């Protein structure tokens, strides 16, 4: 059954939306009217420009409230939950690995290409972890190798072969001009050219990476904002068990 929902301000279905944006025009009544018309043109039924401020001579910042009548069927929305599972904590993951595989699971991670930001891969892998979620290095039944930043794809594959990795984690933080996608695609192509795509579980991560994007370009999963080591570890060991059954 359809369940139509609309934005909620202080009354059900009032459709109140908060907006802020900049226009390349000077501040003044004309600019505020232009901002109001712009918001209405997006389908809002009412719009109030509550603040305008000159950012420079030729640019103005607006805060506006709009009212919409458009709703969405909540029941029809399908979330991409493949990478949402963090059901196993550190101890449980290690116990699972011990029981199913009887050996340590090897995970190699790096931030690849020219991307110099280790913050993502560190959050997942470093002993300390992030936001009270221990990183993979602390898991006694995982052998975690964090190669750091600016690692060429070739070197990452070489290293994964050397330590006989079960899973490879690639972090991409810089996304300007879609450089992260090119880099991630190039990695999969290299693996495929070597006939080794099936050998490793491949995972992409970063603040702008979604599971959907990652799967589309040939990864087993993608982990974005709000994901911790628990999510990654749960996915890797379950996937590995699945692979072992095949």
């Amino acid at each position, binding site marked *: 059954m359809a369940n139509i929902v609309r934005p909620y301000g202080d009354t059900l279905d009032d459709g109140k939306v908060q907006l802020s944006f900049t226009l390349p025009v000077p501040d003044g009544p004309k600019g505020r009217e232009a901002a109001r018309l712009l918001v209405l043109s997006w389908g809002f039924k009412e719009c109030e420009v509550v603040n305008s401020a000159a*950012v420079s001579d030729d*640019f103005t910042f607006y805060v506006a409230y709009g009212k919409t009548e458009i709703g969405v069927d909540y029941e029809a929305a399908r979330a991409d939950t493949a990478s949402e599972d963090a059901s196993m904590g550190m101890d449980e993951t290690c116990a699972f690995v011990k029981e199913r595989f009887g050996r340590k699971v090897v995970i190699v991670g790096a931030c690849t290409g*020219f991307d*110099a930001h280790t913050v993502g891969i560190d959050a997942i892998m470093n002993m300390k972890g992030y936001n009270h979620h221990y990183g993979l290095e602390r898991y006694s039944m995982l052998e975690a190798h964090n190669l*750091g930043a*600016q690692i060429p794809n070739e070197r990452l594959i070489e290293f994964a072969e050397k330590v006989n990795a079960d899973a490879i984690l690639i972090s991409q933080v810089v996304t300007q*001009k879609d450089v992260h996608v090119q880099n991630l695609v190039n990695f999969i192509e290299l693996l495929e050219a070597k006939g080794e795509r099936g050998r490793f579980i491949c995972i992409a991560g970063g603040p702008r990476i979604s599971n959907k994007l990652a799967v589309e370009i040939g990864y087993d999963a993608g982990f974005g904002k709000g994901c911790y080591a628990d999510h990654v570890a749960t996915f890797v060991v379950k996937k590995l068990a699945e692979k072992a059954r095949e």
Partner: protein
Amino acid sequence: MKEKLGLSKGKIAEARSLASGIVAPVLDFIDGHTTVTVERATLRIAGADGADADGVPVPNLIVDQLRAADPATLEGGALEGGALVHYVNALIRTGGGTADLNRRIAEGYRVGSEPLGDREAIRRKGAQLVDIGLGKVKANRMQRSAKMEEWKGRNNDPLLYLIVATGNIHEDVKQAEAAALRGADVIAVIRTTAQSLLDYVPFGATTEGFGGTYATQENFRIMRAALDAVGEREKRYIWLTNYASGLCMPEIAAMGALERLDMMLNDSMYGILFRDINMYRTFVDQKFSRMINSYAGITINTGEDNYLTTSDAYEKAFTVLASQFLNEQFGYAAGLPARLMGLGHAMEMEPGIKNGFLYELSQAQMAREIFSEHPLKYMPPTKFMSGDIFKGLAMDTMFNFVSKATNQGIHLLGMLTEAIHTPFMMDRYIAVENAKYVMNSMESFYDEIEFAKDGLVVNRAKEVLSQTIEFLHEIGEKGLLDAISTGMFAEVKRPKDGGKGLEGIVKKGNNYWNPVEEALKAGLGLPGRGRDYSASSAGDASSAGVAKG
């Protein structure tokens, strides 16, 4: 400046003396070596510029050709005498000016193909080129001082520092103008993400970059002109900042000195720890770059904030203070006065810590008191910025508060959209308005507030200082290089012979000649090398015109 923490003077002196002892053996290594980029920076100050049809810069062509012609260069070949001698020699042989020679080199002429002529003539011509190059730098320094004097008191205190990073220098200009007009004092043009690992500096204006814009001399010039125009209009000096870091530290410093940049990100160990650049290479490069910065009156910013994005800011607070002490000693050794050392730190503790704000206040006040003459560069929260822009704005407000409450010098404005995208124009606007509101409303706060004698703020600072001394003892016992290679900094291990750029180090022979280095050392009052080119080849120790320290 009022002291509020009651820190032991003896302990502070002990920490400084430990840091000085740690740095000393590294300085010995530095003084015995040059690098490819030190040579290229020297060439640039002497007038080498331009690029060939493939975009290879003229300074690289010169150094690479000299090394290729004599593969034994590392241990004593062509480059042993320094690259400049060959450039000057070619200049005399070809009879034209530097612009003409640069063009010839770009078209394929090899300076190494000429046999070295009369050494005395080379020495004289070299001294002349150095006078011209460093003369420009001196003129820039004077112009900056004059403008700052003229517009005294018009900048914010602390200086409000904003980053632009579109990848396109012309777009950067628009963003920078808007930011400066809103009240920013310092504009930093962040570099494209790969540039720190390029062993050359690209040539010309650029419009493509990832996560930032290429640092090139032309881009420096474009932004300088734009900021000068805004400054004239606002009657406020707008500081221009770039990054003398990575594999081309000294060259970027040279270009910045020639184009009147005012600040440079310039850390003694950042490249080693966070960019995996070879440690020997970095140590040699940082000194030369810092001598140039010092001579040019450029304020350096060090990168201690990076320790805290890697390690826990509460537990590892002492690594920041230890690094500040080391950066300070490396700075003094390169002739930098305290007033040009923007030692870095950051507000990066987990926002959920009870009393976290007091610990941040303590850390910032401690840095203020220990480094009382240094401008101090304070960095905003980034690690725990979540995408909740409203919480982010609250965190940035707290950061603005700490900065003003502890009299920081250079205040990098936090962005409410940190961790979402590179800042929009309106994000910067919100940041500047926030800072101006907070700082104006608490203008005299520093003089009004004291801390409880045995309270949390005071005790925390004492604890961090003690931990720092302990840590410096450990480093001292191991030696700095071994301390880095065993992961004592930022939990990163870097082998001594690993990392990028190792092949670019050259041991200086007895015939090494670098009149730029000598002039810098003389100008900064630093001890020079015992011998120079003219002394060993022509028996003329008087070496008039080339100052010796």
